[in-house]
């Protein structure tokens, strides 16, 4: 298809889509006034019934916990896909991207970058752990905290070499952490079944409102998800960085 034909086809379908959007949005109440029966109900019950002060975490890991299990496994399978794709080696067919200056060396990271990265690592780890453990109290939780934790080894990579990145985050340990995190979620759900409740029913003592251990199973799930997300992101980073290093060595 020529470029012009493609653009014309796009314009026609974009106009049609815009009409569909118009049909849908013109029936909506104005933004800021959309009634939310479920949301209001959740806001009323999270503190008295669940002892959780962050309603978003309560929805994710308790009220809608089963859906989040699926979400976690989307992440799990995607990371698996990335690792599989990056390991799939085939004789590269060289195109126009051949190295024109082979004797040129990549300069080492500057002192400023190294010092800043090394200084940021402890702060990042602390902030990540804070995020994971305070999910049920303030905004945050396993997903956000896990990603923050995963940036710590990346900062070390910025400061040093890929070898050091590998030392901090060995492949086997990272893969194990990811799998263990994912298994924790299912295990907690299964334990609730074994105790006579339904899957992921919040059966643990709810604790005092506002304390780190409040929320029953939610802080435990948060820990598992944090481990899984951190492991998953680092695993994907490892897959991409390995590719980079191999290309440089060729």
């Amino acid at each position: 298809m020529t470029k012009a034909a493609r653009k014309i086809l796009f314009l026609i379908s974009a106009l049609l889509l815009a009409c569909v959007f118009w049909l849908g949005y013109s029936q909506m109440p104005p933004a800021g006034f959309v009634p939310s029966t479920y949301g209001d109900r959740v806001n009323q019950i999270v503190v008295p019934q669940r002892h959780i002060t962050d309603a978003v975490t309560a929805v994710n890991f308790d009220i809608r916990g089963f859906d989040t299990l699926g979400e976690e496994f989307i992440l799990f399978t995607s990371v698996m896909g990335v690792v599989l794709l990056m390991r799939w080696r085939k004789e590269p067919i060289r195109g126009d991207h051949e190295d024109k200056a082979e004797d040129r060396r990549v300069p080492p990271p500057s002192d400023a970058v190294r010092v800043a990265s090394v200084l940021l690592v402890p702060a990042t780890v602390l902030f990540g752990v804070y995020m994971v453990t305070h999910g049920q109290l303030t905004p945050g939780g396993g997903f956000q905290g896990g990603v923050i934790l995963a940036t710590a080894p990346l900062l070390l990579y910025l400061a040093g070499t890929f070898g050091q990145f590998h030392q901090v985050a060995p492949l086997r340990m990272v893969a194990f952490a990811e799998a263990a995190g994912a298994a924790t979620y299912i295990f907690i759900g299964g334990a609730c079944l074994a105790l006579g409740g339904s899957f992921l029913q919040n059966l643990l003592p709810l604790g005092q409102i506002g304390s780190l251990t409040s929320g029953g199973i939610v802080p435990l799930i948060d820990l598992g998800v944090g481990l899984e997300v951190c492991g998953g992101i680092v695993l994907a980073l490892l897959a991409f960085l390995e590719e980079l290093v191999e290309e440089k060595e060729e």
Partner: protein
Amino acid sequence: MNFLPYLVSAWLFLIGLYGVVTSRNLVHLCICVGVIQSSSYVLLLAIGYRIGRPAPIFIDIKPGTPAVDPVVQALMLTDIVVEVTVMALLLALAVQIHKRNGTLDPNQLHAIKG
């Protein structure tokens, strides 16, 4: 004014789609998919927001105070996680395509030509 978020969401979707259709680089195409996805963030925010209400965090406000909708915010968290992972998967595909074909221009990829 109160329909502006809906307009922004539709605009982001269409402009991202335009980017996908006319893209000449697969990495650029992945970013365009991200732009399309961000239209759903704007839409979810617009649906969940209630004028004059605080965030649904009851650590420093009285429990039971009417707040904005936490359900769509939780949905948005799902949305972001899915976007990040899909983006990683797409970029991994782009790396492999570049390795096999030596180009990132979708117009020069004869194997996927329709």
